[in-house]
């Protein structure tokens, strides 16, 4: 994905939901796109599948290349062929993503047969049972005839994963796949997702607001704020040596299960509405690193390489002033932030 911008025309004005976003993901790799509500992470992924409603939405720039082909210029027919076979998606709420009037088995078989017209009903049925067993549904043979309302949220999400993986996709987009689930079920579903990805080797884009899920699942991370990517890097780099004050602020806001923190260091203020994104760096009104400097208000910081390798980028004018190694496991994070950023 290169330089993608998406606008929405609303009664309140033009909303720049996605602003010049670029990322790439390779086979077998998991890229986590992380950010708070309204940062544009979901719209970005809808664009990949050609699912941005137009109007009110409008893609104003960019290209999305899949195996060399630009998806933004592909015909609707071509997109239909790719969706569900080469590129598939898992949504947050499985119970509303599944069709309530068809059985689970019919829906998964439908996906299989839509992309392989020669597949017999019987063979499809056998494959569905195999897929559901693969995602840990007990007694799959009996349960294929159930309707979605007969299944719990966790089981429906397993069915969604089975459906998404049915045609061995090359790209999997998972949008908040476990947000609606309880924690013990979330752990089970993440295991299933990890296993399914390992089997198919799909390039995965995991969209989430949950940094802990990112730490468990991702190889690389892109942090979004107000429609832009503000930092990208390997998962260890992002968690232990972030080079953008927003990323560090998120880490310091997190209550921890694994340690007693003296206190949280919340990011002050509110996230901007996309109708009125602050000029310059969109994070400047909440930033502790800014120290009243005008450059942050006047100049939009570009995403720059901070390591020389191209693997770690930050959109902060003053990234070299960030504290070095951040030990997020200990209580020291509060101290580091105080010393480094005040």
């Amino acid at each position, binding site marked *: 994905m290169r330089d993608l911008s998406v606008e929405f025309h609303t009664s309140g004005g033009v909303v720049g939901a996605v602003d010049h976003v670029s990322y790439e993901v390779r086979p077998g790799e998991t890229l986590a796109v992380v950010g*708070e*509500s309204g940062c544009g992470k979901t719209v970005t992924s809808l664009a990949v599948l050609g699912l941005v409603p137009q109007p009110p939405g409008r893609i104003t720039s960019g290209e999305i290349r899949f195996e060399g082909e630009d998806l933004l210029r592909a015909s609707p027919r071509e997109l239909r062929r790719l969706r569900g076979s080469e590129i598939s998606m898992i949504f947050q709420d499985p119970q509303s993503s599944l069709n309530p009037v068809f059985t689970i088995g019919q829906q998964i078989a439908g996906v299989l047969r839509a992309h392989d017209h020669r597949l017999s009903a019987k063979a499809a049925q056998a494959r569905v049972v195999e897929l559901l067993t693969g995602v840990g549904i007990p007694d799959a043979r009996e349960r294929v005839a159930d309707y979605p309302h007969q299944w*719990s949220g*966790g*089981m429906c999400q397993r069915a969604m994963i089975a459906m998404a993986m049915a045609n061995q996709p090359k790209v999997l987009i998972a949008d908040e796949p476990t947000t609606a689930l*309880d*924690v*013990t*079920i*979330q*752990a*089970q579903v*993440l*295991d299933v997702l990890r296993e399914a990805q390992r089997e198919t080797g799909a390039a995965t884009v995991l969209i989430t*607001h*949950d*940094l*802990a*899920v*990112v*730490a*468990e699942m*991702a190889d690389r991370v892109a942090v979004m704020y107000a429609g832009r990517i503000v930092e990208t890097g390997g*998962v*260890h780099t992002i*968690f*232990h040596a972030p080079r953008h004050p927003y990323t560090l*602020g*998120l*880490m*310091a*806001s*997190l*209550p*921890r*299960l*694994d*340690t*007693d*923190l003296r*206190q*949280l*260091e*919340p*990011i*002050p203020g*509110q*996230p901007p509405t996309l109708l009125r994104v602050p000029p310059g760096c969109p994070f400047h009104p909440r930033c502790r690193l800014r120290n009243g400097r005008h450059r942050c208000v006047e100049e939009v910081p570009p995403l720059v390489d901070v390591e020389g390798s191209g693997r770690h980028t930050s959109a902060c004018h003053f990234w070299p002033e960030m504290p070095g190694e951040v030990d*997020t*496991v200990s209580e020291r994070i509060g101290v580091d932030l105080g010393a480094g950023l005040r």
Partner: protein
Amino acid sequence: MTTSAPATSHALDGTAPQRARAGEELLRVEDLVVHFPIRSGPLLRVTGQVHAVDGVSLVLAAGETLGLVGESGCGKSTLALAIMRLLDPTSGRIVFRGNDISTYSRRRLRSIRRGIQIVFQDPHASLNPRMTVQQIVGEPFEIHRLLDRGQRRARVAELLELVGLSPEHARRYPHQFSGGQLQRVGIARALALDPQVLVLDEPVSALDVSIQAQIITLLQELQERLGLAYLFISHDLSVVRHIASRVAVMYLGSIVETGERRAIYQQPTHPYTQALLAAVPIPDPSRRDRARPLASGELPTAARPPSGCRFRTRCWKADDRCACEPPELLDRFGHGHPSACHYAATTEAAEG
């Protein structure tokens, strides 16, 4: 925080209850049961009972935070509503400052409600969208016939500052606020009558992480300044570890383990607590490969809970004894840290 002097130490009128001393017992729940009837058939006869809360006991002292954790459907919100008497308990006692309020009439409850207030998860749903913030936060004074108009206005301004808003916000309506700001309004309303106990039912679960941290920090500051006791209900074990001094873990209507925060998080002895802690993702990629016992299967329905121990259908330790004999919540090791498991034991994996 930009707030000024503590705003609640003054009495609202001559009848305001005296403040509790730190450590004094404020709230005691004894063997509380809430069952909901299941009605079915053409005559809607009662054909069963949902055992939403099944024999819960707990104690809350002045100035402390008791964290109540559990997954959806475990009965934690029903318990909150029953404690507030917004639901009628089937049996059991709720004792607030020495008075058994479980059988109080609505009229008598009014005096108790000055001492114990609740904050809900979603302020957009729990605050009236047609009222201004002045009306929302000032309404308790109206209900209790306290203060004249000018005093109410001044008190609302004071409360808004206390929760980190400005007095100008009083003229606005709920839709003009973000979720985090509106939750501050909900907290201001709950504090209006100068309560000693706040029941907080998932107060930060609907918020983004940066805003969640602001509200948690606000709650901690308010507790310190006003000496409030919190019953903090949440599904988020990380948040509870941060805010609670004691923790109770609920599963399918019952408390399965309770103790000091460190005991629960570092030496859990109930398999459900262990599985719950192991399932929580940790925001540190270098700890990805830690060993984790996972609870298998799903939560059974509270309409037909399993016999014996309710967790046995998902437990790796369960045997015949667990199927017949419900385990009691007992302090098996004498550590002041009771656990409702026949085979309670600490594990190596659950270190802190």
